[in-house]
């Protein structure tokens, strides 16, 4: 595990004197001091607008910005890496940049009921505008995708969009098989790896993922930045999304020509300080043994889930070998929102609500869960304290729903 002392925020208290126990990592992770310091240093020493300038600062800024792309390209083994403001913009970039260029009336795309709203709404919008058919792969009672239904849904599909790892259940989907089947019918595949990327090193070339969407803030990096990896073949099919500075080659009143590299999809002044911070976060992650961490965190999640069940909670998730350390639960005697307030009162930060996955919750027959999600700096001792608090809360308030 990483040293929690690397993360300044983890030593703070909330509500007066409650030490913070941060278990809302699926929403966003905390940042090590090296990441914060790098952005700080950028603004204190190298801040300038990038590209097309010859002065020293602009050169430093440009190199720093492009170094982030290079790091991500290596990390994900990707052919193309477009920097976006996050997973959501990355998916919208696929919808606008690839979808509008390739999909036509009557074409079908395949989503799943497990998707985050960010991987549903852009497609619903495009589908409505273009007359595209959207097929949803159901979630089975064991909280996995219905792979038979998936295979049946592929006929004539042009695109499959699937969440690598569910932000509600922690379930890691069989993306290898999903991609293989999709490619067999000539469909491209977009993986929403907002949750997957922080927990395991994803090799898009080995997987064959045409598109992979990621947010920096969920993997130790800053807010406001993320990326979309794209294979060269899919890249070549795309048209520009947003227009503006930096993405053009030449502009005249009659029309414009575009850059041929990733800049084509990065209109306007990019997220420079954010790229600086993210690169350092990736360097920090590179020092972590993610496989060992996966084991450790999964162990904590399994133990927590078991304890919660023994306290009368229903846990949504199965914590299989490749799932992430997310524990979603409900108690029949206490409303999720009340639960979260009472945990917060003692310093435990968890999330509650629909987690931007209403179709999934609808399928599960619920409208919210309490969600504790663990990351690199969390400890077994924190999980134990958490269960102690849950026990206390349920004893005192657990007959109130």
């Amino acid at each position: 595990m990483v040293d929690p002392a690397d993360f300044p925020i983890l030593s703070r208290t909330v509500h007066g004197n409650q030490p913070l126990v941060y278990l809302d990592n699926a929403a966003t992770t905390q940042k090590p001091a090296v990441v914060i310091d790098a952005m700080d240093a950028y603004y204190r020493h190298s801040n300038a607008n990038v590209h097309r300038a010859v002065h020293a600062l602009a050169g430093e800024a440009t190199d720093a910005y492009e170094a982030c792309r290079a790091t991500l390209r290596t990390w994900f083994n990707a052919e193309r890496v477009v920097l976006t403001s996050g997973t959501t913009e990355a998916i919208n970039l696929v919808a606008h940049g690839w979808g509008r260029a390739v999909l036509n009336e009557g074409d079908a795309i395949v989503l799943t009921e497990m998707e985050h709203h960010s991987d549903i709404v852009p497609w619903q919008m495009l589908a409505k505008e273009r007359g595209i058919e959207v097929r949803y792969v159901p979630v089975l009672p064991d909280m996995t995708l219905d792979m038979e239904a998936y295979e049946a849904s592929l006929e004539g599909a042009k695109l499959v969009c699937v969440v690598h790892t569910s932000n509600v259940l922690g379930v890691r989907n069989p993306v290898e098989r999903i991609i293989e089947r999709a490619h067999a019918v000539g469909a491209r595949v977009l993986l929403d790896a907002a949750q997957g990327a922080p927990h395991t090193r994803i090799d898009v070339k080995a997987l064959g993922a045409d598109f992979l969407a990621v947010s920096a803030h969920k993997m130790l990096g800053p807010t406001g930045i993320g990326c979309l990896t794209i294979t060269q073949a899919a890249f070549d099919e795309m048209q520009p999304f947003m227009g503006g500075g930096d993405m053009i080659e030449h502009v005249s009143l009659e029309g414009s020509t575009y850059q041929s590299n990733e800049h084509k999809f990065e209109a306007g002044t990019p997220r420079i300080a954010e790229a600086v911070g993210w690169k350092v976060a990736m360097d920090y992650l590179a020092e972590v043994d993610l496989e060992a961490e996966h084991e450790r965190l999964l162990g904590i999640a399994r133990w927590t889930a078991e304890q919660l069940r023994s306290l009368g909670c229903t846990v949504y998730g199965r914590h299989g070998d490749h799932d992430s350390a997310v524990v979603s639960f409900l108690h029949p005697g206490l409303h999720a929102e009340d639960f979260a307030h009472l945990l917060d009162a003692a310093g435990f930060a968890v999330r509650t609500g629909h987690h931007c996955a209403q179709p999934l919750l609808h399928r599960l027959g619920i409208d919210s869960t309490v969600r504790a999600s663990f990351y690199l700096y969390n400890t077994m001792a924190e999980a134990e304290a958490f269960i102690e608090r849950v026990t206390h809360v349920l004893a005192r308030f657990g007959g109130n729903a």
Partner: protein
Amino acid sequence: MVSEALAEVLEEFEAIEDRTQRFELLFDLADDVTELPTDEWSEGNRVKGCQSQAHIDVRVEDGLVHLRGGADARIVQGLMGLLSLGMNGQTVDVARQVTLDIVEATGLLNSLTPSRSNGFRTMYDMVMSTMGEA
């Protein structure tokens, strides 16, 4: 002057140091809400912006305020209880003395910006606007 019942309960909140105990008191206040049966829950009386389900019904009859409500989250219903203590069965004039500050006084919601979708502000606005029309 706010109603005596409300003033008393606010004093009680102030006297409690421990945040969890304050929640306990708020949970208890949920019982002070005159129930709005779930079959009367409608889009019209829904408290929008609340994460949980909450409905509130206000009427003014013979100059007195009648407030009924219900919520699936106990804390939300507790906040309704707080409103009820200050308004239910009171004259419109007394009821109007209740301000948004009463939530601040519970010490439970650190601040009540419109962005915190806790719905209390909406609830409050719904009641005040109904009284305004009366």
